[in-house]
């Protein structure tokens, strides 16, 4: 376990909030016919085996494991978000994602160049949230700056995504310049890189994100998102103010390639992150999983339209009713919800996702732990493989 910084929450029990049944102190989550076509090595072993059947082996027949290395001709682009004083910005650090030369977590091939990061979602107005999430945010729902501080200082988010949903014509129709004030407040409140999300309103997204690009000049923010319907004003502004763009499509790899092709008319490869849409565990997660696997492999095998780091709106996990329904027979929702978000994220982590947009503090912590555990081969000893067949587990747990 990596010790957490002192000012951050260090045990899951706090993160579960008011789930009174949990008292989790001091816990860290912490042979008949030989086929001629057999390859020589196998052939040799099979012959040894065939001989042995007659005599019966008296001792172990030593064999070696050969790592099944693949050939990957290309790599994924590295994308840096945020900018420090040296780069003309005001952030205390930058984050870089991508740069991979191997399929996700194929450590025998190559470890990830940059480990995946977590962006916590912050909204510019109170929104309806599942109870198990809301309990952690109810004090800050009216104040995006305080909300951003909470996710960074308390929940350990690497970066913050400010979703300007109030700019939606149906949700308050906040003007681009008023939205810019909220961006400035959040930039003042936290020193980590920030990402800007639009409302998904086709009329407003262009002007809102163009304004965001302007007020974030020098900060190298990620503008979320350019879509097949609205991309030009965002790409133009990102080029002018040197920002990064999230290229978002809806579960269609050909559409993703097409949008990326259009974006490179304005942007350099280091300015693009891709998002094929995340559906929740149980509600179409396999589409996102397979899209991500195919995008990473396609990129590594030379498809220049797919060589970008990948982002996921993992908070979508909460769209699954099993995550939040108040049904005691399904177990406490204080656990059910965050495990749903965690497992959704874990599947996509293994598929090759680089940037997770998340909400529940326990799920955020879990993904940080998983990245730490998965990022390298540790030398394991026999103690790491206890004899589970004979351990005593108390009845009823």
């Amino acid at each position, binding site marked *: 376990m990596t010790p957490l910084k002192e000012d951050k929450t260090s045990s*899951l029990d706090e993160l579960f909030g008011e789930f009174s049944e949990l008292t989790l102190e001091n816990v860290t989550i912490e042979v008949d016919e030989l086929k001629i076509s057999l390859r020589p090595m196998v052939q040799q072993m099979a012959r040894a085996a065939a001989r042995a*059947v007659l005599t019966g082996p008296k001792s172990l027949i030593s064999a070696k494991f050969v790592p*099944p290395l693949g050939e990957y001709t290309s790599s994924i682009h590295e994308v840096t978000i945020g900018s420090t004083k040296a780069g003309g910005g005001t952030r205390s650090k930058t984050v870089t994602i991508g740069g991979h030369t191997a399929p996700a*977590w194929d450590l*025998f091939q190559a470890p990830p160049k940059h480990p995946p990061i977590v962006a916590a979602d912050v909204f510019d107005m109170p929104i309806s949230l599942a109870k198990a999430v809301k309990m952690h945010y109810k004090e800050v729902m009216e104040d995006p700056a305080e909300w951003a501080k909470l996710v960074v200082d308390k929940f350990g988010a690497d970066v913050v995504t400010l979703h300007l949903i109030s700019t939606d014509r149906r949700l308050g129709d906040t003007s681009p310049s008023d939205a810019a004030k909220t961006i400035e407040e959040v930039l003042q409140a936290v020193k980590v890189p920030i990402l800007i999300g639009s409302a998904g309103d086709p009329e407003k997204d262009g002007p809102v994100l163009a304004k965001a690009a302007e007020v974030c000049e020098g900060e190298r923010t990620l503008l979320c998102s350019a879509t097949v319907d609205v991309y030009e004003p965002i790409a133009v502004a990102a080029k002018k103010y040197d920002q990064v763009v999230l290229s978002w499509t809806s579960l269609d790899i050909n559409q993703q390639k097409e949008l990326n092709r259009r974006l490179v008319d304005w942007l350099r490869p280091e300015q693009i992150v891709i998002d094929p849409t995340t559906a929740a565990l149980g509600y179409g997660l*396999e589409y996102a999983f397979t899209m991500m696997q195919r995008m990473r492999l396609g990129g590594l095998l030379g498809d220049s339209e797919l060589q970008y780091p990948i982002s996921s709106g993992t908070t979508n996990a909460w769209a699954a009713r099993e995550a939040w329904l108040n049904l005691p027979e399904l177990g406490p929702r204080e656990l059910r919800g965050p*495990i749903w978000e965690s497992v959704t994220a*874990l*599947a996509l982590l*293994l598929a090759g996702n680089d940037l997770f947009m998340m909400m529940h503090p326990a799920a955020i912590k879990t993904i940080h732990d998983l990245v730490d555990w998965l990022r390298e081969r540790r030398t394991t000893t026999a103690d790491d493989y206890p004899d589970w067949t004979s351990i005593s587990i108390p009845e009823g747990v």
Partner: protein
Amino acid sequence: MAKLPGPLEIYPLLPGTNCKVCGEANCMAFATKMAEHTVKLKACTPLYEEQKYAKKLTKLEDLVRPPIREITIGVGDKAVNIGGKLVLYRHDLRYSNPTAFFLDISDNLDSDGLAKRVKEIEDWTYIYIGQNLRLDGIALRGVSKDPKTFANAAKKLIELTEWPIMLCSLDPSMLAAAAMAIAHKRPLLYAATMDTWSEVGEIAVKHGLPLVAHTSGNLNDLATLVTTLRALGVNEIVLDPGTASKAGLGTTVDNFTQLRRSATVADNELFGFPLLSTPISVWADYQDGEAPELTKWDEVLTAASSIVRYSDIVVLHSLDMWTNLPLTFLRSNIYTDPVKPVAVEAGLVEFGEVGPDVPVMYTTNFALTYFTVESDIKQAGVNAYLVVVDTEGMSVQSAVAGRKLTADKVAESLQEYGVADKVNHRILISPGMAARISGETEEATGWTVKVGPQDSSGIPKYLQEGKWKEE
């Protein structure tokens, strides 16, 4: 990648009589479906029944054997097949034989304790897209370290259940006693190690049982152990390179990936066997009296990693809904055939006794969305029309965002299914997630659009309140 045989390689080995017993028009059609892995060889019964085809059958079986062998645990209807995998990535074709979940039982429980735990395992279920999600088998653990107790528990177990059983002990004398008692039920033996390969291998050969080869994280050891067991005459092997959790999880995931990649991509036949992981190992750190939730949390993470990274069978302890729901859902998702669109037919569905006054709702033809909405409407016990719009199998939220669900599509559907002639009102209830297009939909259809609940679980309450009828 290992080359899978094509129809022209399969066809010459079939009888060539075009007898249609398999249900296909001719042998070539059958060969084509074999190559697509959509039919099983067993459907060609003449191959098995007529002696003159014996040689062809042997050659065919060799030809179509998947890179990962299929192994059967248990007997009868409840027997479970593991392995049989053809590809490394699901998008290369599809995965077969979903990861089998085996839940543990300690051999030192009394009769009532055994019966209670068996029932809990058998009864665990949840309805998902019109099917019952279930667990698959029972892992009997030799906690007593006494061969007699272990064998007796195995005997009691086969009286209590038809479910497949895995006999788990690292002590060969324990396995010998229990295998003797229940070999006819075809249990999976766990495990042969670098120390016990000779004795345990003999038990497996003697009773003709599948056997797990277990090592502690070292793949050279596993190569040595498997080579030796095969030399001993053990043909049905399950590979367990060891499951380390937390800081060891990276090594575990990497080992499983290397093994499966060796067999499917590098064509290394030595490792062409199912993989077993043991998320239950996390319980070795659990102290009596602690809150178990964090251990369960780790077990879920370890198991979820195993399901994604190639485990054909997992051994679990936790039986909670909150731990096994996400795992069974994940299994369903990963094992869904990526080629088949998960869609239902678009059209107009009637619930209860429909008349001119009943509400009209609409949804998408994504199977999961449709079945969820269907079950919620049925639960409400109301009479209603449901227009199922063709969104190319996408959910409401994705379809709205991806312009697969538009006002014009809704209008076309109303028109096509003649809904206006069936009811005396012009009120259409939209999914909450499609609120964004409600204005446009009013314009395109001329109907009044009422935005329904965000989640269809709110439908019963929404309809009962009757607000949809208000102006």
